[in-house]
Structure formats: C-alpha cells, structure tokens
C-alpha cells in the first residue's frame, strides 16, 4: 500500500488580474509532499513561488485543480475545518517576527499554544522547540537582537511548536551566508526525517536545494522536475517498515 501524501496538488492553476490583464501565475502544477521528505522548489523573482506556497497551505484557492491535505480536498472543507487545519496541521514559518518588540523569543514561540495551554506548559514546549532548532540561547533575546540566521531558526521553531504535519517555508535561506545556509537546510532535512513531517520550501537560490530530497524549478508558471523524476515521488524510495526515505 502506498503512503498517503501529506500535501497533494493536482493540475493546479492560479491567475491574478492586474487591471484588465490576467496573468497566469501557476499553470497546471502537480506536486506531492510526503511525510519524511523535504521538497524544494526554485524559481526566479516573480516566478510564482510564494503563490505556490499560499495555494499549497490553503491560504489561497486555485482557479482550477485540486489541493488535498492527507487525502482531503480543501474545497470540500468547511471554513471552520480549514481554520483548524491551518492552525493545527500546517506550520508556516514567517520571518516577520512578533508584533511587539518587547517579547522574548521564548514567549513569542509559545504564543500559538496559549489558547489551548497554560503559559507554563506553552513555555516548556517553546523551550523544546527552540532547543530542537539549536537556538536555546535566543530564548531571552528579542527579535531585533537576533541575526538573520537566528531569526530564520526562531521562525521555524514558531511554526513547529504546534507539531504540524506539514511545514511550509518561503525562502528559508534569505540573507544567510553559505555556512548558515547549510545549517538551516540541514535542519529542515533532518526535521522532515526525524519528526516525520512533510517540508515544502521555495528558494531563489539553487545551492539551498542540495539538502532537499526532491527538487523542482518553477518557470513561467510551470513546474519542471529533473529528467527521470516525476513531480510525484519517483525518486524517493520506500524503506520497509519505516515508510519513506530518500536515497543519498
């Protein structure tokens, strides 16, 4: 029996209107992300990467095609179900930081939990999330004091604290040097493998893709995958008993 994709896009198209002109941003994109893998999509500026992520994360509806999460078509979900999905199952790492400059990172990362949990318990999980991404020493720091690399890692902890099934990150290596980039991308790969979640990232820089299990290139609204690979899962092998892992 084949594993079910955490996220699946089937022939998804999306356009924007700029005045009287319609611009097709995504043209019949098909892509799946499974638990245990990191999928990276590269594209030049304006190629539609962020739109792809928004559609994948259920924040924007496509004009045509189907977006499914764990086999469930997002179009068939009620608004309440969609909100639950976005809050609980999909973590989107945003590098915008907290709205308050005074917030310490331990509390910032704990924020998504506060509706369901006590502050004490939320802080405990926040500390674990910060430790998981290797920035425990930022717990007492404020956003403005952090380096770009630390901000990225704290954002990932913020998105991960609810233990989502799918982690979505737009350009996780922006402004990072080669060594910081290696750390962040290595972390995203190991997070997918060890925490058994699907990771979908978009990058404007090809070197960031080396750690991904599968890669694709977005150009003129179409997704191009390496020769011999399908946008689905052809180049990902299944390990008996454990589900899936990628070669290499």
């Amino acid at each position, binding site marked *: 029996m084949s594993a079910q994709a955490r996220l699946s896009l089937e022939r998804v198209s999306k356009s924007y209107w700029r005045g009287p002109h319609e611009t097709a941003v995504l043209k019949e994109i098909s892509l799946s992300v499974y638990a245990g893998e990191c999928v990276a999509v590269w594209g030049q500026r304006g190629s539609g990467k962020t739109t792809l992520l928004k559609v994948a994360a259920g924040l924007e509806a496509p004009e045509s095609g189907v977006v499914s999460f764990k086999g469930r078509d997002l179009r068939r979900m009620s608004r309440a179900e969609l909100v639950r999905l976005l809050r609980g199952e999909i973590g989107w790492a945003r590098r915008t930081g907290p709205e308050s400059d005074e917030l310490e990172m331990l509390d910032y990362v704990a924020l998504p939990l506060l509706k369901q949990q006590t502050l004490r318990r939320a802080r405990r999980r926040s500390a674990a999330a910060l430790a998981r991404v290797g920035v425990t020493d930022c717990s007492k720091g404020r956003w403005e004091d952090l380096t770009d690399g630390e901000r990225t890692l704290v954002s990932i902890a913020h998105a991960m604290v609810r233990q989502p099934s799918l982690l979505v990150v737009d350009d996780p290596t922006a402004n990072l040097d080669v060594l910081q980039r290696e750390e962040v991308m290595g972390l995203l790969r190991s997070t997918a493998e060890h925490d058994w979640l699907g990771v979908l990232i978009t990058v404007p820089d090809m*070197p960031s893709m080396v750690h991904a299990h599968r890669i694709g290139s977005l*150009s003129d609204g179409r997704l*191009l995958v390496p020769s011999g690979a399908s946008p689905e899962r052809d180049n990902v092998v299944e390990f008996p008993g454990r589900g899936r892992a990628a070669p*290499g």
Partner: protein
Amino acid sequence: MSAKNAVLGLVIERPGYGYDLARRLQDRFGSSGFAPTGVYSALDQLRSEALVRSAGSRAGATNERAAPRTIYEATPKGIDHFEEWMLGCSSLAPVRDELYMKIALSKPHNLSRLIELAQAQEEDCLARLAGLRRPATRSRGGPRAWSEVAVLLVRDAEIKQLQARVEWLQKARAIMDKLNGAHAQGAARGDRVA
C-alpha cells in the same frame, strides 16, 4: 581545465589508486565536469612528467585474480609543481558553448528546435543538481574545518553557475518563444523573413 593538477593535489593529500582518486575527485569537485576516466589520463601524464610514482600496489578487493591496483604517491618534483600551481594566476575559464554558437548562427526557422534544446539543457542542469551528493549534516555550533568550508565554497560556486545558466536559459526561451510566435504568424501571412 584538465584534471591534472586536481589529481596531483589529491595524491599529495593522500596516496591512492585510480578508482579511489576518481571517487575522491567526484566528492570534492561535484559537478565540475571532470570525467571519471579523466583521472587515468591525468595519472599517465603525471607519471610521464615524473610528478607521481608508484608506491606499491593493492590486490583487487572483489576478485583475487583481478589485476592489482597501482597506488600513486607524489614525487618531490610533483609537490614543487603543485605549490607553483597553487601560487600561480588563475585565469577565467573561457565561455565556449555549442548552444551559444547555434543561437548566434541560427535563422528564424530554427527557433522551435532551439527552444526545445534550451528546455532540455534546463532539465539537464536540474538533473545535475539533483545528482549532487549533499554535504554531511552537522550539528549546530563549533567552527568548521577549513577543508569542509572549502568544499562548500567550491560547491556553491558550481551550483551558482548552474543557476546562472538556468536563469539565462529561461530568459532566452521566453524571448525565443515570443519571436517564434511572431515568426509563425508572419509566415502564415506570407511575410518575407530572413
């Protein structure tokens, strides 16, 4: 650029036999375009110039009857040669590419084929990137060894070249697509085109 100095550098780091050096060359230089077989011609050249010499042999690992593998080590002359190369100037590689030439010499009726070729090259670039071995993941903190940083820097440069290539291919393809459409319309109207 031949693999000669790269192979010599690897032999100086650690003596090895042909296959071992081909594997290390691939690990170290990734997509630099050194063919694995280039190691053997590089070793022939290095030996004929007395820059490397045999340091004994090792039996084939899988088959006892297989020919023993010659292990190469650098000669003092080889070490001097490598040091000179390291200190010498590094010239910019010439840009010679068949697709560039084809585009420069093409006629409008060639556009459809050129668009296909550009897309095929783009796919090849992605396949090359997908085929690169990823660097070992390490835990956060602590300085990296220079050898590790050097490999990352070289890999970075290679992938950036692939990226630049893909970016150019996409732009060239978009322009050729546009002109090809115009050419097809013109041809349908019977316009005279060069």
